[in-house]
């Protein structure tokens, strides 16, 4: 199994979710993060003083997949999250040692 971690632009979440579903991924976990990278934050003005917001809001996805689904799922994320502009984000794939579905106690690939 693989754990796919992706940092994407927030408004892409819907499309990424659909893309994952269409390749057979059955679930995911999503959180808000602040991204630092090449894409700079915004310059804002408040009461006459400019300030840089130094981070860019991003969405962090975690998707647990079986080994055979991993590359399709990565491709699906890559395509659906792509805009071509700076800040599209990254996908990181990590090998999973074991997985459990808490409800049933299933382990390994069955847990996915």
């Amino acid at each position, binding site marked *: 199994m693989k754990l796919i971690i992706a940092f994407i632009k927030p408004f892409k*979440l*819907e499309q990424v*979710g*659909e893309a994952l579903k269409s390749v*057979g991924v*059955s679930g995911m976990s999503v959180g808000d993060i602040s991204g630092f990278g090449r894409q700079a934050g915004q310059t804002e003005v408040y009461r006459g003083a400019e300030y840089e917001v130094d981070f860019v809001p991003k*969405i962090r996805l975690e998707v647990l997949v079986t080994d055979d689904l991993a590359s399709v799922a990565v491709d699906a994320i890559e395509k659906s999250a792509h805009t071509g502009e700076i800040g599209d984000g990254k996908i990181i794939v990590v090998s999973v040692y074991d997985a459990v579905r808490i409800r049933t106690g299933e382990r390994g690939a*069955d847990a*996915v």
Partner: protein
Amino acid sequence: MKRAKRKLLMGTALGALLVLVVASPAMAQEDPGFATQFVLDNLWIFIAGVLVFFMQAGFALVEAGLTRSKNVANIMMKNLMDMSAGVLAFALVGFAIGFGGSELLGGWFGWGLGIAGVEETVGDPLLPATFFFFQAAFAATAATIVSGAMAERTKFKSYFVYSFFITALIYPVVLRWTWGGGWLAQLEFPFSDFAGSTIVHATGGWAAMMGAIILGPRIGKFGKDGKPRAIPGHNIAFVVLGAMILFIGWFGFNPGSELLADEFVPQLALKTLLAGCAGAVTAMIVNWSKDGKPDVSIAANGLLAGLVAITAPVGAVETWAAIVIGAIGGLIVVFSVSMFDRLKIDDPVGAISVHGVVGTWGTLSIALFAVYDDAFLGRENAGLFYGGGLDQLWTQLIFVLVHFVWVTVAAGLLFLAIKATIGLRVSPEEELAGLDVEEHGSPGYGHDPAHVGSGVVTAAFSGAGREPVPTSEGGNE
């Protein structure tokens, strides 16, 4: 002092007077000076009523702020509805019970106020419409106090039913016995409660107590060891804003209870002001010494305690006494809040302490500090400290006791009846999840659906239905 006459008038003879007024139109309109005074009296009491209605916003904010965000919509709804339904209930039946044509058996005035009677344009001094408007604002206050103590675990439907009955029945009976000229006003030494420390506030406070007891505490309020655990409110800014709005409203509540525009109004306002400030400062200092840090919501409770305390004696006492009475109110509230915690009665906002306990203190304080002849007292220097002896103290004790018994029994039966029929408390699951979604359909603080997934992701990842029934079904691929 000549105030006595006016207030007595209101007290014992009001019902009769109103009936009279309805029968005999058009007086008082000739002399322009008099006519203007008449308009001024009515205009002022109407404006005072508006200030009292504004207190609804204050109550809503204090309660919302002292509870958790997952219940905020429910709390605002309760406060909106106890006012709206309460005013209608008071118009339909409550007012008649409270102030209807006294001795006259059949001659009730005010049944279905909506239908008749308040369209008269004369009155002495108040028009029926003015008097009803002001009294309706008071009735709404009595009702809304209960909400806070029952917060975060009461079914909305049940709250709505309760709310109807307190303004239609429980509070009006108190009115009848007191301001309505009933038996407590006809004792040799009649009861005294100028603006309602007991009549309004303790009615709310004791009903709140019964509600809190019968409901039981919120999940998590008491640890396995039985020790109270803090459940911090989600918005202290709302609490203080609410308290400040209540403070403003009190300048309608107390000075408006003069029921006239006269030269005593500013004095009533001044004593109200000083008592409130003394309550806030005292509560803060006492709480600071007791717990090591000055809690903001306790200081806000202290402000309200000072105001509740002075509500009964405001007309009868001197200015310095107002400060003392308010300060003692602030002192009491600090210990009372901790006491109810220890008694395992869970009152998230301190309503029982502020309105019940301190309201009782304010009422009794008359027996100590009364110097002016005001609000049914019928004599000067009635207070113990002014040589008035214990006469007034017995009366005040009877008054608060009878009142306590009536309200706790009536409200207790009401809550038990609701519990036995439609149920009083939400399920533990709902309580943990918050009442907003289950009771009202959506959360009080909605999130932007464009932010975390907007709609279509649902379609992608979820089946048709909801979480509900346990299922033993296996994997999900």
